[in-house]
């Protein structure tokens, strides 16, 4: 049975008819063609699909599109300013070489922004513990941790 889903994605209202079993990540990637949100696993363990739903980081592979009915969704495509200026977290990732292949990166950035919101002054230990749900095979996390620690005060100052 197809169902109708509607939500706000990156500030724009969207609606579509989808199969009931459609995952939120599939809806974002296939229906909306926002392919910056990635799929790295089938078991909610890699974090490549992390988005913000109503202001909190969630794994979009782990819920149905239907469950996001009416929600306010932010994907990586909506993080930079309208003129393309990078968000301070994105800028810190670039500055500190916190990405290599780039596949984990959108999810990492979304998680990192959420992390700093919850821990405005995180320590290295807090960052490492909080990143547990985001897997990166390339960077060894060293520079991701550095980037997040560096970005934290700048992101906090945004609010």
């Amino acid at each position, binding site marked *: 049975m197809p169902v109708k889903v509607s939500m706000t994605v990156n500030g724009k209202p969207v609606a579509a008819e989808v199969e009931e079993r459609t995952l939120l990540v599939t809806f974002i990637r296939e229906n909306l063609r926002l392919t910056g949100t990635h799929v790295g696993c089938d078991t909610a363990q890699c974090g490549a699909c992390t988005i913000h739903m109503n202001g909190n980081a969630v794994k979009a592979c782990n819920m149905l599109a239907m469950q996001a009915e009416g929600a306010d969704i932010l994907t990586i495509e909506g993080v930079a300013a309208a003129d393309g200026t990078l968000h301070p977290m994105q800028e810190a990732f670039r500055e500190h070489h916190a990405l290599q292949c780039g596949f984990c990166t959108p999810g990492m950035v979304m998680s990192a922004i959420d992390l700093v919101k919850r821990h405005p002054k995180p320590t290295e230990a807090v960052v490492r513990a909080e990143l547990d749900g985001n897997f990166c095979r390339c960077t060894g996390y060293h*520079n991701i941790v550095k980037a997040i620690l560096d970005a934290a005060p700048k992101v906090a100052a945004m609010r």
Partner: protein
Amino acid sequence: MGSLNFIGASVKRKEDYRFLTGGGQYTDDVAPERATYAVFVRSPHAHARIRKVDTAKAAKAAGVLAVYTGEDVAKAGINGLPCGWLITDVNGQPMKEPPYPVLAQGKARYVGDRVAVVIAETYNQAKDAAEQVEVDYEVLPAVTDTASARKKGAPAVHDIAPDNTCYVWALGDKAKVDEAFKAAAHVTKLEFVNNRLIPNAIEPRSAIGAYSRADDSYTLYVASQNPHVERLLMTAFVLGLPEHKVRVVAPDVGGGFGSKIYLYGEDVVVTWASKQLNRPVKWTAERVESFMSDAHGRDHVTTAELALDKDGKFLAMRVHTTANLGAYLSTFASCIPTILYATLLAGQYTTPQIYCEVTAVFTNTAPVDAYRGAGRPEATYVVERLVETAARETKIDPAEIRRRNFIRSFPYQTPVALLYDTGNYEATLDAAMKLGDVAGFAKRKEEAAKRGRLRGLGYSCYIEACGIAPSNVAGALGARAGLFEAGEVRVHPTGKVTVFTGSHSHGQGHETTFAQVVASRLGIPVEDVDIVHGDTSKILFGMGTYGSRSLAVGGTAIVKAVDKVIAKGKKIAAHLMEAAEADVEFADGVFKVSGTDKQVPFAQIALTAYVPHNYPLDKLEPGLNENAFYDPTNFTFPAGSYVCEVEVDPDTGKTTIESFVAVDDFGKVINPMIVAGQVHGGLTQGIGQALLEGCRYDPETGQLVTGTMSDYCLPRAGDVPSFKLDTRETPCTHNPLGVKGCGEAGAIGAPAALMNAITDAVGVRDVPMPATAETVWRALASKKAA
């Protein structure tokens, strides 16, 4: 214009903006019109005869366009997947090369073996229908364990290898080694397993075949490290298609680490099927498929011995290894435990005699091939565990025993075929000991003991051989491919430059590093240079990226093309300035007549080449566009010293890494930021091998026990420390950049450093990898019991 030299500068990456904003284009992001979706039916059994595949129900399911089985691909005349390296065994016989079908023929040989494919209008329809394919299996006994594969009564994986032996291969002078052992004052012997690893690049493998009737051509989008090699193997050996009618595109690729070098059956099937259906066919692996069907790495069982004289000088080394190749021979499987393993056993030392015998076996497991380091981590583990253990047994300080045996004069011919061009091993060891404050270790150990913790320190002094070459020598050793690289430098009329490289970047940052090289050589801004890779329709040829070869081989090809551009530019400049060509020099982006103030900037030469009004047309073609191929004369030999300090909690066995120091000599470094990133990633994969990762197949059923991210433990941010890095620079002597390669070092050097530290902390000779809390706790318990 000032000097535009970017060599050694941490230029921020050109590729990052697109990755940070969701603009990367990975294979699964490509959405061709009218795409169909493929789902593979895989064997749930490790070894089974396929009595019948009933596709009737699936074929009738909603949305299904086709179901193909092994029979169909056989009927279509599709060949098996080729192996790119022929190993000749100790008796002069070629290795056993059983067929490696794209869909199983008669038998399934590992859990995950491709048995059939279902193609439907949507992914969900294909997935649903795949469950309706009924396969009648006769389950056969399986063998998955490396050491058991040759035991009497072990089930044969292939009829042509009844004892499961692909080859027995040896390197070195056995008689001389045996003699040296007889004369030794001390012999250190270790037996260990180099644990099997599952690569887990975060982007799952993905392939889209698209056939065009309009011009009878194919396009394959694929997550590959080497699109040209993929095309060559697929067209010439498997599908028999004309190569010029096939375009292979490897767009952004989410990490490879070896696992995306190979030609896989899925790539062939989607390409072939796209013509049958006259529609694009798309397949993307689920993570469970990555676990069961990506080529795995390592998996050695080894007995290693080191003979020493009374002063701790190494006299000889003797190594016997059984290497698991899995169920089929993957693209480069055969050369990993031989050519890339035994040849590295000299390490950084003057050991005069080395003998290594390798028995390669088939088992009912996923194919095993190169994984970050590929043979060299296994070799380093053998050498550095032996050396550290020998030091402890002979009561010589482990750093001191290494110093007594370091190679100090170059070039150095090892007894295992390699000729090291240059190195300075003492320099990295000194620097690592300083950075790691080895002098203060005793105090830290004491302090840790007061807290009830066991503290240990371990070294690893690795050597690596990168940029495997030259082609003719490799050919003599069995390589069935060349090992050069190609590059093209296209200068546009405005002086901007597009570079086409046969290397492929899947995280390494070539778009930046290569641009730095070209910009520096031409004296133009980095922004004026773009790097294009990963598309056979754009790039003249390429051997791709693996074995840390990109900069040393691919970068050199580009440098050669740049130098041709400059040489031609000089001719044009000589004409413009009415000077003799020999008097024109090029520096900092300007052509000058030496000894005068006459000069023309690079951009003006470019414009002149494309607007050849004032131009020596009788002697010189217009345009400024040059190609080069580069086939290196030798490997490069990066080396380094790692010092790791751990603490073990004796109550739980849990290890924490207190400090990890890596000092590497990669020769000339172009972008230190990118190089450090490569080391961080390599170290983390090495730490993963030592502490967390280990592929397990159930010995009874052959099921893959570690088949998900919850069962196979991958390193997370909390499992690794921040690293302390430094470099030393001994430039490579035989390429113009003086570079050696840095991609694999961390994964090669880290496991031995960590295991040396853990065994030091615990006070036992050996702990198997991965040294999980349980494993270490057991080692402590059996020590107490003893």
